[in-house]
């Protein structure tokens, strides 16, 4: 049969088999499993068939709950059905998993196992999700390597059909799901040989059909349920045997042999570790190396975890075993041990008690935790465990890989123990997101896989920031299959693709003596040495590194490749790393270039060939002086004036030393201080805005639209300018309302991302210098120090008294301090200006419930948070719960606030005589409808607290703890369209219907932005997105219309780029409305495929073509006898296509399928016309009779 070695990652390996052995695939995206669904969707879109010759039907559902329901239904109707998920998504499938297993339905779910959110969310890998589904009755089959993922995907599919036990086939999220390695791709012949078509037909035969009707899914009573539940026992008893038979059959066909438990190590081992997943690969390396030097150690790799077969475990263990360490990649607080540990203990305990243990002496079993949330698990740590097992009293319930100085569970290990062989090239590449580094590296692995006899492995570490993010690629190449499932820490090649990193990161600490260091720098070989900071020079000298330099950006430019440096850096890598002989390497690169770029035409190929040749000409080895000459140290990670917590905790994470923080450094409940982004000066903008105070008309729009609060406006008393830096700019305030004040618009030079939106929106024109406005972009480095000083002075100016500001206009709203600043959002983000506005208007009294999505990542991903505090120490209280529950979560805030306020008021009444009637009356009758009212109430509460502090009674203490509730609070429920339109809609609908005072802000990017652009019900007709590759065939859900149908919900659709004044009004009206409010905010996004600098212009066109009508529906107007609905935008004045075809998400369909694009555009136009007319009709209705309330 045909065999082919290819390079692919774990997700692709699983999806490859799943797509070919199923008929229906229903998914919902969740990191890190999303690529599996995307592969399946892409293959189906391309017409790739399964092994039965039909194209699987792939559909995206609204949530994992929905996906599992659809899967259950498809299975019950007889299709071979699968899904892909992880973490919270898997947990949402639990109810259906019980059903599917209870009905003995063959199915395989492929899970890239990911941490379940507890004190924090994590997208990274461990087994907490799969362990949470143990009781569902599903089989659990664990893969450790990419080859195993492909093989076990098929073995699981073949097994489930025979055993009628459904299977979760899982592998470690990120470490395996995203690791690229070499695999032998299973052919369709192999798959056909493994899958028994009789069993497929049997599955169909059990399906629901009116042609042979029966019912399934009855309700049962106490008399019978128990017995019926016990009927499945024979199936579970037979299952392990069936799995082994299937594995044996697989071995016959492919030559790769697996057992339910596979042993590696000394045949007479006394110490054996037992674990599953990618950690077993690292353990394999450690055990092999130690056994080779005579240590009596071994490893059992668990393949089949459920049903758990003690007999097969015993068969795998050597009879000499004395101590077993069961390692779990999960944590179950409150349990006497983690799951695998308990299964192993139980196995031995039962065998011993029943006298059937094959071991002369029952071994000691200890348990330990490792690798939670993709924490590194290395051969050094495995050795640490094995060393612990040699002690007379080895620690039980230990942790390895961290330093636990609180509960002292951690065991020691020698981090320098390495099993990395000398004949493996271990390369680390430090790049900037999107600069081509990662794609070049992925290409390099492909070259090795397809054109040489070598093996390659690639693993990529990304930042959590969405702008200016660092990527670190870990590549290994060698003559043998590579199973090193851990990051490179002993690199013999280090490449820095962005010279600025030399000032930020200590990359050379990973280089071994004699390693090669390649730097992309604008400085040539004779000057570059002097540009290096001292630590870098020291590392080069002391480790004897061979230092190469290339100006890749210049070469790219001269070769006509713009700013893409991937071909150049890839060539440079092959030229100096020694992976292949240079000539062979260059030939291989050129062959790959031809293959990749052939379709674009010979000129593109030629440009890339030229780039390759020019690389070799421009790659220079630097003559390293014998000593360090630089005195320049790396700048401190955070300024010296940063708070203590930031210096000892946050800074460590920013400096990439988070791994070294001990347990005691962390808060026990996941609580972190606000306002920490201000200390993380990222300096990622190449250019920043510079204000021209003489041309400025002081409209405030630049400040309004800035996604990062990196350009701000302040008004202040003129005398406060005393002591200002000489370059600090200010202007006389223009306007009667604050006549006599000064105004400054100031950039935060180190926090700006250089997006340019402020310049785009500026309406002012410089008549003396046509083409310039009141702001223009200028290179940052030359003016950085000057603007740092100016910004520091700007921040020192006091915030203007809020009670004097009526924030109902754009200009006045921008006089308020932003309490959301310098987030990790994309440069030019369309969401964050709205979030910032919310923080300005209401932040000092707001509680924010934030759905999972972009906003929860830029809002709360460690090390820092952009949610800030004002001068009085107040600011938004923010939390992310989950994805699907966000509306309910925020509703819970409101329930508590309402209840505690009521309690506080009751107590005030009761304590009136004690605290003073005047104060009590004031507190109870306060008008808090404006800033002045709120400020006065705060004063009263302060006075109340003072009085209560002097009282000794339970009631007084009770009221003291509730007194803050007497000040009006603002509840905001925030999230994207993925949450609001899809997974969270049920909850959102209910919360809106309940009538309480909550404010919902939907940041509508019309696509699942955070997970890479999957379609949502907010995606417009005709737009291309993942799972809508052919253009979305249905119109955008009109959530505003649905909400308005209730009649008592304030609803607004806003678009800052079209009508910012309406946006500000809508926010104020929504918050003041004493009931549920919904604002749907148009947010441009990188996933639209636009120049982000022009995002606001796109918003304007969306409104002008009618796709995004601006409206406000205010129930108070209805109560006053007026039509509650106001249309705030005019009838469409441009066709939809004039907006749409400026965006890649629409234009790409025009390129690939112009007929379909035309058809969908016609439908979109018709829909817009009809919908606008409907709104117009509704808005023109006369008001009803004034309601008596």
């Amino acid at each position, binding site marked *: 049969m045909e065999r082919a070695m290819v390079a692919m990652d774990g997700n692709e390996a699983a999806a490859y088999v799943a797509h070919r052995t199923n008929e229906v695939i229903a998914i919902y995206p969740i990191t890190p499993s999303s690529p599996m669904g995307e592969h399946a*969707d892409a293959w189906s879109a391309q017409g790739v068939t399964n092994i039965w010759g039909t194209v699987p039907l792939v559909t995206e559902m609204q949530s994992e709950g929905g996906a599992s329901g659809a899967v259950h239904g498809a299975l019950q109707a007889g299709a071979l059905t699968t899904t892909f998920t992880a973490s919270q998504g898997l947990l949402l499938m639990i109810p259906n998993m019980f059903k599917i297993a209870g009905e003995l339905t063959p199915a395989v779910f492929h899970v890239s196992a990911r941490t379940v959110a507890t004190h924090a969310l994590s997208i990274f890998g461990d087994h907490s999700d799969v362990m949470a589904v143990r009781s569902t009755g599903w089989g659990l089959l664990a893969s450790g390597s990419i080859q195993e993922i492909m093989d076990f995907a098929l073995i699981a599919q073949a097994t489930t059909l025979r055993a009628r036990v459904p299977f979760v086939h899982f592998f470690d999220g990120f470490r395996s799901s995203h690791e690229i390695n070499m695999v032998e791709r299973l052919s369709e012949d192999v798959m056909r040989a493994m899958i028994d078509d009789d069993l497929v037909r049997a599955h169909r035969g059990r399906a629901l059909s009116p042609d042979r009707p029966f019912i399934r899914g009855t309700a049962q009573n106490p008399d019978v349920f128990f017995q019926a539940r016990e009927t499945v026992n024979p199936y579970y008893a037979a299952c392990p045997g069936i799995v082994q038979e299937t594995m044996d059959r697989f071995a016959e066909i492919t030559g790769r042999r697996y057992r339910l438990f596979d042993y590696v190590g000394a045949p007479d081992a006394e110490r054996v570790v037992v674990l599953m997943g990618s950690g077993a690969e690292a353990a394999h390396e450690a055990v092999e190396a130690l056994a080779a030097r005579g240590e009596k150690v071994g490893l059992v790799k668990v393949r089949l975890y459920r049903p758990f077969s003690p007999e097969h475990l015993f068969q795998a263990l050597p009879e000499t075993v004395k101590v077993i360490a069961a390692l779990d990649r999960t944590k179950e607080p409150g349990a006497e041990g983690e799951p695998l540990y308990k299964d192993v203990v139980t196995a031995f305990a039962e065998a011993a008690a029943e006298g059937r243990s094959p071991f002369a002496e029952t071994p000691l079993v200890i348990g330990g935790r490792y690798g939670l949330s993709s924490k590194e698990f290395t051969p050094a740590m495995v050795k640490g465990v094995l060393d612990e097992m040699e002690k007379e009293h080895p620690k039980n319930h230990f942790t390895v890989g961290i330093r636990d100085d609180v509960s002292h569970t951690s065991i020691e290990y020698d981090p320098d123990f390495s099993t990395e062989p000398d004949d493996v090239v271990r390369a680390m590449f430090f790049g900037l997101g999107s600069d081509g580094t990662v794609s070049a590296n992925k290409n390099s692995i492909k070259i090795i896989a397809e054109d040489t006899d070598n093996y390659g492995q690639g693993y990529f570490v990304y930042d959590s920031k969405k702008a200016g*993010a660092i990527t670190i690629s870990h590549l290994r190449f060698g003559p043998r299959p590579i199973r090193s499932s851990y990051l490179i820490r002993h690199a013999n090649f280090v490449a820095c693709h962005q010279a600025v990193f030399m000032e930020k990161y200590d990359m050379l600490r990973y280089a071994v003596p004699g390693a090669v260091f390649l730097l992309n720098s604008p400085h040539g070989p004779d000057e570059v040495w002097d540009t290096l900071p001292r630590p870098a020079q020291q590392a080069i000298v002391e480790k004897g590194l061979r230092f190469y330099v290339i100006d890749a950006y210049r070469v790219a430019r001269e070769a006509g490749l713009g700013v893409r440096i991937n071909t150049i850096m890839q060539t440079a890598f092959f030229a100096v790393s020694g992976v292949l002989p240079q000539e062979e390497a260059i030939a291989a690169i050129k062959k790959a270039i031809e293959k990749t770029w052939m379709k674009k035409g010979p000129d593109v190929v030629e440009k890339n060939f030229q780039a390759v040749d020019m690389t070799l000409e421009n790659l220079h080895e630097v003559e390293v002086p014998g000593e360090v000459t630089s005195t320049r140290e790396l700048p401190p990670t955070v300024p010296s004036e940063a708070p203590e917590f930031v210096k000892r905790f946050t800074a460590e994470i920013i400096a990439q030393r988070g791994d070294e923080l001990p347990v005691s450094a962390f808060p026990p409940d996941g609580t972190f201080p606000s306002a920490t982004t201000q200390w993380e000066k990222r300096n990622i903008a190449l250019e920043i805005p510079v204000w021209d105070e003489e041309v400025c008309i002081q409209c405030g729009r630049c400040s309004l639209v800035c996604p990062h609060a990196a350009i701000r406006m302040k008004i202040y008393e003129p005398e406060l300018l005393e002591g200002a830096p000489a370059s600090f700019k200010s202007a006389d305030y223009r306007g009667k309302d604050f006549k006599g004040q000064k105004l400054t618009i100031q950039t935060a030079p180190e926090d700006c991302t250089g997006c340019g939106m402020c310049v785009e929106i500026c309406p002012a024109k410089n008549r003396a210098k046509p083409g310039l406005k009141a702001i223009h972009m200028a290179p940052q480095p030359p003016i950085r120090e000057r603007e740092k000083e100016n910004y520091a002075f700007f921040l020192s100016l006091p915030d203007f008294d809020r009670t004097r500001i009526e924030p109902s206009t754009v200009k006045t709203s921008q006089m308020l301090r932003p309490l959301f600043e310098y987030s990790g959002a994309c440069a030019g983000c369309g969401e964050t200006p709205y979030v910032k506005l919310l923080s300005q208007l209401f932040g000092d009294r707001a509680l924010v419930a934030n759905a999972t999505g972009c906003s929860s990542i830029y809002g709360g991903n460690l090390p820092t948070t952009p949610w800030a505090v004002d001068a009085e120490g107040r600011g938004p209280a923010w939390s992310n719960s989950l994805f699907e529950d966000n509306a309910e979560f925020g509703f819970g805030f409101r329930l508590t606030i309402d209840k505690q306020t009521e309690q506080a008021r009751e107590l005030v009444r009761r304590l009136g005589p004690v605290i003073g009637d005047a104060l009590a009356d004031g507190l109870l009758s306060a008008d808090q409808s404006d800033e002045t009212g709120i400020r006065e109430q705060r004063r009263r509460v302060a006075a109340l607290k003072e009085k209560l502090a002097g009282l000794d009674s339970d009631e007084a203490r009770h009221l003291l703890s509730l007194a803050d509730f007497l000040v009006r609070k603002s509840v905001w429920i925030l999230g994207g369209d993925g949450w609001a339109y899809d997974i969270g809609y049920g909850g959102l609908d209910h919360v809106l219907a309940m009538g309480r005072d909550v404010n919902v802000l939907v940041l509508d990017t019309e696509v699942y932005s955070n997970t890479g652009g999957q379609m949502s019900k907010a995606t417009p007709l005709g737009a291309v997105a993942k799972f809508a590759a052919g253009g979305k065939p249905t119109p955008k859900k009109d959530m505003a219309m649905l909400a308005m149908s209730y009649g008592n919900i304030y609803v607004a659709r806003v678009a800052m780029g079209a009508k910012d004044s309406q946006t500000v009004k809508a926010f104020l009206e929504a918050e003041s409305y004493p009931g549920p409010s919904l604002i749907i905010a148009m947010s441009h996004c990188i996933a639209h495929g636009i120049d982000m600098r022009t995002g606001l212009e796109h918003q304007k066109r969306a409104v002008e073509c009618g796709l995004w009508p601006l409206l406000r529906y205010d129930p108070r107007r209805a109560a006053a006898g007026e039509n509650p609905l106001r249309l705030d935008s005019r009838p469409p004045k441009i066709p939809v296509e004039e907006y749409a075809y400026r965006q890649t998400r629409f234009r790409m369909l025009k390129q690939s399928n112009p007929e379909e694009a035309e058809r969908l555009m016609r439908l979109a136009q018709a829909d817009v016309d009809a919908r606008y007319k409907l709104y117009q009709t509704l808005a023109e209705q006369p008001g009803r009779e004034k309601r008596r309330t």
Partner: protein
Amino acid sequence: MTDLSTSYLGLTLPHPVVPSAARPLSRDVDAVLRLEDGGAAAVVLHSLFEEQVVEEEAAIDHYLERGTESCAESLGWFPKRGEYAHRPEEYLELVRRAKERLSVPAVGSLNGVTAGGWTEYAARIEEAGADVVNLCSVILEEGPEKLGEIRDGLGRLARGARVRVPRPGPREHEPGLLPRARRLRTGELREAPAHPLKHR
């Protein structure tokens, strides 16, 4: 009645009034049909410009690539690139539909700036039904010393097109593009500026 028939691009036409390649005149099938209704002896469809296609493809490529491989949860923003043909299908569709409705000859027109990028498109325009493919090439060189290079470039282009485009079928195109290409091969460049194979 004076016989106005002529031969042009290898086509025998009843008269020499042929609208030239201009997008407003041939932007869609309806416009092309109006030209025929107006009495055009043949229709030269507007040019497919290499720069335009390359730019559009480059723009799409730019946005498909921009921001990728940067953030762990969103390594890409759009469905896989393999699904996009990157072909000027719209133009081919115009040729196809025009030929279905026209009774006069339709001439497809390609305008390129590189010597080699067009051979495939020339073949596809011919497959879509065009009676003739008009190849225009911009080779921006100056000076008589460059004439040899220009000649070589045009020759390469013509040879390339000729390689991909099969010999004419039942109709003899004489003189036409393909015969022109043969003549170019033999070095009669001085005839080229007067023919659709243009140097500008």
